[in-house]
């Protein structure tokens, strides 16, 4: 069988094939000067043959950006690998218009390896460029959307972390949280701390499996559930059992891990439980770390064989610190988990004299000092237990007792070195708070008791005023509102808990020196 052929094709001379090929042909000397060029190229660029051959170099026909690209990428690659393919540049035509092209070049050498010529083909890339421009626009849109989604998840996640931590003279908390930097999606780590009643606080750190919006939402649900269940006073093990049932119908929260602890501020007793979570660390007053390996059980929703959860207890001596954290702080692919946990315990112990305000952040920094890229969320919650406030008074709710209290507080603050504006602020705030309790908390016919606890650290004073009275009106009387406003004007943080009586907690960072209380 013979191949049918068109005589016109066969009669095409090599010359015609070259000159009128559907691509531009260029032959250049090794220094880039054009030696030969075909008709197609001339037609595209609008140059006469004489204007190019022997007169211009290929690089002279490129746009400014293309010239730089030619020198910094095209030529080095051509010389190193002998050819380059599909380089995208813009040709500048005789009339100044530009045309996007794709360039392939091959460097020819003689038998001695000397460069002889650069042969180049040039393809029209106008359509491809238009197409790729669309691709680029589409990718930019997708990037922007992904960025927005990440922003939403970050906002959601951060908004669910507590804005303030419980304040009490017997306790100081410090937390540090950092979303993972690698990958676009946030993780599901969280921490929380809240009062259970006037003398107990709960602390929790957890980690939801997965990333992104779903993880952030699941984290929010779990956090709320923990808060709600904790106030039923069931204790850590029962709380985890309730959570198991909670996540049963909630796949995104299943296999979440968490460490939960309740601290009794009166005696330092801690009840805790860990569901598939790394062990909390206690640093005793002498700076010795202990890992809390008790109270362990499986992650949430993974209790297949047993239906009861374990919990354990530990006693914190005054001056101890307790740390809860997520695995982002200790998990590395290249090191055993135990080593990393020991490393964290070391960091917690080494930095135990740091002020609490920076403790969590400094410890995180040290624990991760040898890690280049932290791709997981990192979360650390630390608690310093002091037990004995240096000032404690319980007084009958009678106006005349206020004078005694002021005098005692005055003496104590002086002894602690709290002077000037700080001193005035604390006395004023404390008097207002006690005055409110005396005047409004108890019915005239029933004498109540007001408790004042105060503590001072190198950087702040904390005061807690508590009564066990009942509010007679839904809205505080005008005067009491004013009293609270005055307290807020001189203290940095004020919180009121009315779940059982009233606990008014307040805190002022020490400014030192003189000045007015508001400064």
């Amino acid at each position, binding site marked *: 069988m013979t191949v049918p052929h068109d005589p016109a094709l066969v009669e095409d001379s090599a010359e015609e094939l070259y000159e009128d090929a559907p691509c531009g042909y260029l032959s250049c000397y*090794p*220094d*880039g000067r054009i030696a030969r060029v075909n008709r197609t190229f001339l037609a595209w660029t609008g140059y006469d043959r004489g204007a190019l051959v022997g007169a211009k*170099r290929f*690089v*002279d026909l490129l*746009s*400014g*950006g293309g*010239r*730089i*690209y*030619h*020198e*910094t*990428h095209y*030529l*080095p*690659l051509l*010389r*190193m*690998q002998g050819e*380059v*393919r*599909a*380089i*995208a*540049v*813009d040709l500048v035509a005789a009339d100044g218009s530009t045309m*996007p092209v794709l360039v392939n070049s091959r460097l020819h050498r003689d038998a001695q390896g000397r460069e002889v010529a650069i042969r180049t083909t040039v393809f029209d*890339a106008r359509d*491809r*460029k238009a197409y*790729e*421009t669309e*691709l*680029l626009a589409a*990718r930019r849109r997708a990037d922007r959307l992904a960025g927005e989604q990440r922003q939403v998840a970050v906002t959601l996640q951060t908004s669910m972390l507590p804005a303030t931590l419980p304040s009490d003279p017997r306790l100081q908390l410090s937390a540090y949280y950092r979303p993972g930097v690698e990958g676009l999606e946030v993780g599901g780590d969280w921490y929380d701390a809240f009062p259970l009643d006037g003398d107990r606080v709960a602390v929790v750190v957890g980690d939801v499996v997965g990333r992104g919006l779903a993880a952030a939402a699941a984290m929010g649900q779990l956090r709320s559930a923990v808060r709600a269940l904790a106030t039923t006073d069931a204790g850590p093990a029962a709380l985890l059992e309730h959570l198991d049932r909670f996540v049963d119908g909630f796949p995104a929260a299943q296999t979440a891990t968490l460490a939960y602890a309740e601290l009794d501020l009166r005696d330092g007793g801690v009840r805790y439980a860990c569901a598939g979570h790394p062990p909390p660390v206690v640093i005793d007053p002498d700076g010795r770390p202990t890992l809390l390996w008790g109270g362990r059980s499986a992650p949430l929703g993974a209790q297949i064989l047993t239906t009861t959860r374990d919990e354990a207890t530990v006693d914190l001596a005054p001056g101890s610190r307790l740390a809860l954290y997520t695995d982002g702080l200790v998990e590395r692919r290249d090191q055993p988990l135990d080593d990393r946990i020991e490393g964290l315990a070391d960091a917690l112990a080494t930095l135990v004299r740091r002020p609490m305000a920076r403790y969590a952040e400094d410890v995180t920094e040290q624990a991760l000092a040898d890690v*280049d*890229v932290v791709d997981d969320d990192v979360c650390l919650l630390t608690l310093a237990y002091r037990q004995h406030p240096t000032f404690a008074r319980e007084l009958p709710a009678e106006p005349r007792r206020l004078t005694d209290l002021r005098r005692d507080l005055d003496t104590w603050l002086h002894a602690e070195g709290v002077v000037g504006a700080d001193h005035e602020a604390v006395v004023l705030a404390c008097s207002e708070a006690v005055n409110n309790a005396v005047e409004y908390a108890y019915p005239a016919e029933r004498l109540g008791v007001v408790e004042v606890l105060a503590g001072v650290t190198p950087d702040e004073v904390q005061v807690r005023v508590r009564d066990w009275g009942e509010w007679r009106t839904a809205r505080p009387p005008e005067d009491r509102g004013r009293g609270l406003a005055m307290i807020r004007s001189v203290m940095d943080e004020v919180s009121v808990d009315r779940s059982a009586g009233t606990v008014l907690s307040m805190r002022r960072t020490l400014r030192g020196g003189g000045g007015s209380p508001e400064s």
Partner: protein
Amino acid sequence: MDVLRRNNVHVQGRSDGPTLMFAHGFGCDQNMWRLVTPAFQDHRIVLFDHVGAGGSDLTAWDPQRYASLQGYADDVVEIARSLELSDVTFVGHSVSSMIGVLAAETAPELFAQLVLVGPSPRYIDEEGYVGGFTRADIDGLLESLDSNYLGWSSAMAPVIVGNPDRPQLGEELTNSFCRTDPEIARHFARVTFTSDNRADLAGVRIPTLVLQCSQDVIAPEVVGDYVHDKVSGSTLVRLAATGHCPNLSAPEETAAAVRAFLDRS
């Protein structure tokens, strides 16, 4: 931070020889010197990749640190210190010429001589100064860096060296040389082509060789003359080599010029 790993530092030649430190320019990596270094095996040769290029540690790249050429110069100083180098002859190509000028200014105790190959302290023309490019040229380049998906974006590697239908080829080749993260390349181009280091030239106090190619579209002869004029006591050598990369197109001539300078001083 392991500086030597960060900058993919390689040391060759005689460990007791005088030190030659070679620095590559924008667009490629230490492979740019591979045809030149064989001529200096009687020296201790230090080669490295700028962060973002070649085999450098991309995670070390930081837009703040590398917001100006000083960040790259600080890297050069750190490399020299961690190798405990002294009396270094720094050979910088293209933008690395100015990086060398800044490094010598930052740590004068480390550097004995500078060789500037195709230097330009300022690429953009200004009143009374010819850099070779107009503001519009550079804006056009930067614009194309930002918007030309075809040539400069993440598709750049396969576009340069390979066939998009055969990505493994692109990958293989970009792994061998001239590998650049597109984001970082964009940033480096911006820093390189918009910087102005003319004022730093007067601060050069050590013997300096300026190597000027003919028909260099990136660093034209008038710019080489300017550098020679502003660096007091510098030597200007015009190479017959054409283009911007004599280290590739004319390695023997380049090596001979450097050798003559080393022998003289």
